[in-house]
């Protein structure tokens, strides 16, 4: 039935997100009163859920998958919709939905929450577009489409020094990185004479003396990717941005935006700069990613282990997870038998991560909403007053640590497995050591919630409200995190298929 639809229908998720964003602006102009918060949230949620549903449906119906005639290319090959694109737009859309729902309670007393929703949706649109990009030009445009709203979102609390500081740092580092990224693109263009992935790949195949230029360009592009995925050495913005930004935004950035960065990486480094050709040309970006992965996960986890504030700990932990996922690119090898499975595992991990990490940040959002402090000590004994939310948080923590019976277990172990399968034992070993460290600080949160006693009997009285939206979002994320373990089969198989299609 897919074939009866116009090809453009493959971009349905993108359109849905974009239209929702516009619709939100409309709603805001129609009813600019305080109640608009709710209506906005509803519209945003509906739209993003619709987008997510659309992507899932498209995946299931096999759009763009090899067995239904391969990827669908549109607009002079500038856009290319395949299973991976849809897979990721599903991630983006569902995270967006969670964030929007949560934001409703978070901004309940904010002067003008309207802009928040539209900005989020536009950013999501950019991400979805990014997932389907087939040209460096589109990649850059879409990337900016993601970044520019994000800067604003981080600095959204205009009167909050933390928020503003975070926004500034995010913006400055971002501007620098995108400049570097852009220059890298220009160098690649100079070396290969094309912006389309296919063309670039051919060019890489036949570099005569331009290997240096192409190499410089590729490394700079790696830098750009590293920025979006918050990987060393482009990670510096992340801790501040995540800590300073409103918690829902932190959730959005650390899950969706990071995934967007990775989808770019997966595309570029399979279709534009294929492993074989690049190595032949003496451009060993695999090594580069390997180093980045190892350093990133180590730095993230070890720094996270010594934080006092939960939110900042989560920021570092998300850096650490960026390191894990980078294995998906770093463990590729020319004609490696497990290329597909390792990258697929990385994709699957991003999906699971989308739920567990978003959920974790949303729990922090709830804590901020309640006004209990930010440190581990302030979280002591929360389980006594908010058992459901705390249980959900425990689920997120253990899942992030990669413990069964939660989805994070499979995704992480399959990632390591793929690395080992491709002969990258050392990466797996790094991952192992780091996940031991991570176990320590994740369980610190659980310990605070369930084991520690509240600092004072009155310290829990702050928990006076039950923010429905936040609860809904958190519980939904938790349920998803649990159910994804038994239901991991379709996920990993889709992801592997999608990834394998790229090689």
């Amino acid at each position, binding site marked *: 039935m897919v074939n009866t639809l116009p090809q453009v229908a493959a971009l349905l998720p993108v359109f849905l997100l974009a239209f929702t964003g516009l619709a939100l602006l409309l709603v805001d102009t129609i009813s600019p009163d305080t109640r608009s918060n709710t209506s906005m949230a509803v519209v945003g949620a509906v739209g993003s859920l619709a987008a997510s549903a659309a992507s899932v449906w498209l995946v299931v119906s096999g759009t763009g998958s090899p067995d239904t005639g391969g990827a669908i290319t549109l607009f002079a090959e500038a856009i290319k919709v395949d299973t991976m694109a849809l897979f990721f737009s599903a991630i983006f859309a569902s995270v967006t939905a969670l964030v929007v729902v949560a934001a409703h309670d978070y901004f309940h007393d904010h002067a003008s929450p309207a802009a928040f929703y539209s900005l989020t949706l536009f950013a999501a649109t950019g991400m979805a577009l990014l997932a389907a990009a087939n040209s460096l030009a589109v990649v850059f445009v879409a990337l900016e489409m993601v970044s520019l709203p994000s800067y604003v979102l981080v600095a959204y609390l205009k009167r909050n020094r933390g928020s*503003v500081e975070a926004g500034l740092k995010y913006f400055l580092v971002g501007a620098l990185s995108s400049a570097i990224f852009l220059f890298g693109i220009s160098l690649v263009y100079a070396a290969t004479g094309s912006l389309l992935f296919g063309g670039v790949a051919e060019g890489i195949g036949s570099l005569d003396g331009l290997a240096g230029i192409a190499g410089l360009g590729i490394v700079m592009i790696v830098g750009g990717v590293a920025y979006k995925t918050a990987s060393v050495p482009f990670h510096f913005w992340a801790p501040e941005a995540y800590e300073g930004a409103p918690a829902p935004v932190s959730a959005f950035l650390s899950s969706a935006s990071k995934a967007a960065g990775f989808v770019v990486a997966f595309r570029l480094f399979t279709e534009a700069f294929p492993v074989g050709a690049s190595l032949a040309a003496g451009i060993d970006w695999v090594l580069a990613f390997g180093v980045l992965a190892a350093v990133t996960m180590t730095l993230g986890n070890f720094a996270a282990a010594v934080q006092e504030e939960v939110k900042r700990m989560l920021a570092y932990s998300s850096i650490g997870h960026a390191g894990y996922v980078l294995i998906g690119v770093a463990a590729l090898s020319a004609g490696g038998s497990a290329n597909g499975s390792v990258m697929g595992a990385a994709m699957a991990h991003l999906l699971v991560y989308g739920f567990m990490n978003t959920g974790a940040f949303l729990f922090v959002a709830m804590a901020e909403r309640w006004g209990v402090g930010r440190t581990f000590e302030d979280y002591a004994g929360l389980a006594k007053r908010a058992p459901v939310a705390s249980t959900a948080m425990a689920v997120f923590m253990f899942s992030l640590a990669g413990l069964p019976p939660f989805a994070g277990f499979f995704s992480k172990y399959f990632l390591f497995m793929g690395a080992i399968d491709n002969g990258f034992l050392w990466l797996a070993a790094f991952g192992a050591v780091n996940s031991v460290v991570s176990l320590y600080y994740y369980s610190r949160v659980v310990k605070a919630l369930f084991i520690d006693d509240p600092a004072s009997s009155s310290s829990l009285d702050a928990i006076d409200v039950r923010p429905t939206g936040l609860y809904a979002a958190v519980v939904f994320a938790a349920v998803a995190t649990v159910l994804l373990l038994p239901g991991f089969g379709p996920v990993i198989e889709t992801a592997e298929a999608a990834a394998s299609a790229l090689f």
Partner: protein
Amino acid sequence: MTAVASSIPPEWYLLLAAAVFCIGLFGVLTRNDALYFLMSVELMMNAANINFVAFALYYGDLTGQVFALFVIALAAAEVAIGIGIILVLYRNFGVTDVTVPTEMRW
């Protein structure tokens, strides 16, 4: 004009672009004022544009030039947002020095 442009070997354009890029980077690394920072970033982006335009000419396809236009537009947007952020920075910290806000670290 085009003849002149095309008679110049592409390496020169690369060198020019690289030079501009490095000037921009130098600015980013040395100046603490947000506005200077912004301008330097602009320089870096334009360095990229030089490459695009020049090699579009060199390869004889328009993709690069068109993309350059996109970049200019995006740069403008970025500046707009940048200014906005610098404004709230000034409102909250009373300075435009980017090294002042260091409440969050470690």
